[in-house]
């Protein structure tokens, strides 16, 4: 489709300066971090000589611009450098940890949409009623608590006291064997392999952390759904539909909600990129081997390669995300497609 290709091209063209900007800022930011990684990784009783030796292996002794050129050179060749804190190449770390975070965030968003959108629609149909206020209050309460607090509270109640939830020890209880890696998403890989027992295990592990993040992302989605539904319900084509005698459900869902989805999709995009970054706390509490905690540990240890790799991955993800949203827009609203974005 020519215009869809045009959207993709336009969006990618816009993305290039953003990526370049992000790479340079991260490079500068990591160098501005206090603390010399060479000392940290030279180990405890290392003397001046061994610290200098580590500094050379890391190439930190060269002047900054030269380091930057080397870094960009490596980047182009696909070598994202090795992370010192995990001893693995950054790329393999990211490829193992990104699916963990994505799986958690996507499931959380799915959960929160399944709750927030119906809530938004219900609140929009009866604006100002007690139900509208109740929904607004409940959803706002969810977003008012820091995620780590909700996380630990959920562990305390469902795991520690009621022993319903499995032990919050990462993505899979050690009783199960890790599924053979296809997409890195445990749920998908186990389903593909038809190993339903591990699928159950992985799903059980996902429930609490996903719930924690879902509670946190309810508010923006519910609020946007309510606002755009209110706007659509007051538009003329809804009156035409009602005048034509269409059933309430058809008018509400088929006509109004379909149109209201547009701004909701944009909000989803924003909430997703925000949630992916903010689930650092959830990962810390649930020992989830995600990308957030990886970045935080790297930052604390001034592990430059890991931090830069993480930020670049997130930037690429952000660009991909915007691209998907644009395409979704073109699918939902033909007008966007027609005007070429």
């Amino acid at each position: 489709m020519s215009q869809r290709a045009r959207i993709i091209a336009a969006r990618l063209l816009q993305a290039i300066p953003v990526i370049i900007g992000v790479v340079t800022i991260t490079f500068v930011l990591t160098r501005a971090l206090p603390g010399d990684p060479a000392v940290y990784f030279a180990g405890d009783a290392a003397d001046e000589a061994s610290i200098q030796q580590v500094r050379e292996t890391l190439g930190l002794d060269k002047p900054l611009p030269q380091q930057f050129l080397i870094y960009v050179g490596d980047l182009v060749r696909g070598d994202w450098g090795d992370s010192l804190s995990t001893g693995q190449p950054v790329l393999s770390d990211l490829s193992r940890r990104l699916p963990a975070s994505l799986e958690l965030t996507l499931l959380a968003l799915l959960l929160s949409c399944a709750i927030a959108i119906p809530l938004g629609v219900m609140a929009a149909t009866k604006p100002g009623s007690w139900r509208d206020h109740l929904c607004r209050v409940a959803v706002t309460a969810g977003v008012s608590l820091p995620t780590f607090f909700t996380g630990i509270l959920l562990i305390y109640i469902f795991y520690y006291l009621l022993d319903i939830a499995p032990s919050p020890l990462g993505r899979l209880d050690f009783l199960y064997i890790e599924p053979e890696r296809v997409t890195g998403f445990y749920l998908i890989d186990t389903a593909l392999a038809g190993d339903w027992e591990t699928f159950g295990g992985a799903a059980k592990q996902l429930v609490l952390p996903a719930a924690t993040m879902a509670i946190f992302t309810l508010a923006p989605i519910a609020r946007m759904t309510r606002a755009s539904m209110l706007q659509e319900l007051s538009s003329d084509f809804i009156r035409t539909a009602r005048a034509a005698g269409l059933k309430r459900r058809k008018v509400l869902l088929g006509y109004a909600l379909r149109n209201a989805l547009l701004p909701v999709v944009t909000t989803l995009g924003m909430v997703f990129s925000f949630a992916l970054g903010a689930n650092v706390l959830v990962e810390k509490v649930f020992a989830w081997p995600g990308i957030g905690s990886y970045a935080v540990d790297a930052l604390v240890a001034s592990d430059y390669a890991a931090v830069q790799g993480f930020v670049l991955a997130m930037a690429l993800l952000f660009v991909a995300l915007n691209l998907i949203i644009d395409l979704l827009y073109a699918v939902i609203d033909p007008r966007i497609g027609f005007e070429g974005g």
Partner: protein
Amino acid sequence: MLKIRDLCVQFETRNGRVDAVRGISLDLARGETLGIVGESGSGKSVTAFSMLRILDEGGEIASGSLTYGGIDLAQADDAAMNDIRGREISMIFQNPRAALNPIRKIGHQIEDVLRQHAQATAQDARDKAIAALEEVEIKDAAARYHAYPFELSGGMCQRVVIALALACHPQLLIADEPTTGLDVTTQKTVMDLIQALARSRKMGVILITHDLGLAGSYCDQLVVMKDGEIVEKGKPDALARTATHGYTKRLLAATPHKGKKLHELVFDGTAHPILAQGDVLLSVQDVTKTYAGKSGPVHALRGISFDLHKGGCLGLVGESGSGKSTVSSIIARLQDASTGEVKYAGSSLFDVPAAKFAKDPRRSKIQMVFQDASDSLNPRHNAAQCIEEPLRHLGGLGRRGRQDRVNEIAGLVGLPTSLLSRLPHQLSGGQKARVGIARALAVEPELLILDEPTAALDVSIQAIVLNLLADLRRRLNLTYLFVSHDLAVVQMLCDNVVVMRTGQIEEVGPTTDVLASPHSVYTQQLLDAMPTPMS
């Protein structure tokens, strides 16, 4: 077929109950076309909505009955109403493009209605939808089936809405201002289509409009409504002669049509002699304007030239897209032209770019009155602040001086000082138009550009504002450039007229000559579309 007995409709609003309709009674026989005429706020639309029971939030039928084919619609339960809507009675609305679901193919929207009323099964729904489209004279309906509303023109959309409404062959069609917002020429074709369909199907039609001329030429019966009550009933031609109620008379007088004089619009209007014209104040020489559009350059203006004499009033007439607004904003120095020259009192206006013109001493000489008053007044400033704004930069007066000037101008345009502290959304259409004019006159301009100043107003208020403008021109010795799409209004106010079409001038000359013997075919079309006086 339809009997309405003293219907009352009430609305629950923030400051208590409002009676939108106060006991009206109507009858409609099969195949008859009834016109309901009234100005905004007269309750005509509310009556229509109450027939289908699709009143807005907080509205409910307080008393009275609406019997249709034996059923009292006021009491009918939802299930029954659902069957009636669309199958027995259906409705079409004002701006057609907004009345269709923007992201769903028009064919599917028609199918939804058909399937809802079990008029079609999944298989033949498609053919039935295409048949419905053909009935409203849409060319190659099969292809149009897959089109989206935004891909169609205004007129085409209205045809689709009609197809939607008539898909299930209802007995009664309610048309709420079906043609306002459409171009004059398309208005005529749509109304003819509705009339033809009504006759061929023996269908009752209720036409709701504020345009008495339009209602007169298409309806068998007329009803005039004001503030929720029916003030006049009767046949159109009888009504012209035997109008009893003062309001109807004023409405009849205020409706402009061919050959009508300006002062005749208002009862006590006095005719004024044609003013002597001074030398050339404004001369536009071969002005062109091209925009860089998405798919190649767009030539909005292809070489426009005309002169405007001091004290004169030049009409600039053309349909939407003719470039008349572009010319006016170039002259007002809100945007720059691509090529060409505009001389004002001898000196060129183009030597100072539009962006820097704010500081130019001639800024106060050229002012403009806008069409949509609610869009052209800053929602956060009250009337006094709006008028005072130009004084603050160009007037050179102190605070007290500005205060007196504002009051003086308000008086001049007939705006009571008590309204000066009101915000725009607390003023009526007419009051907002007066504020717009007062603001333009605050800095004593010589040339006033009027961009469709009364298009958004009700007929009776339009009459008053037009007379006010004529009066001000005479008293303050102003020169007018009157931009409009409505030839009827232009022929009353302007000495000379320029007819424009797609960026070029079709015809120039004194208004009387152009009206009497138009040279270009296009001008003739415009003349034919003008409503004729009530016979």
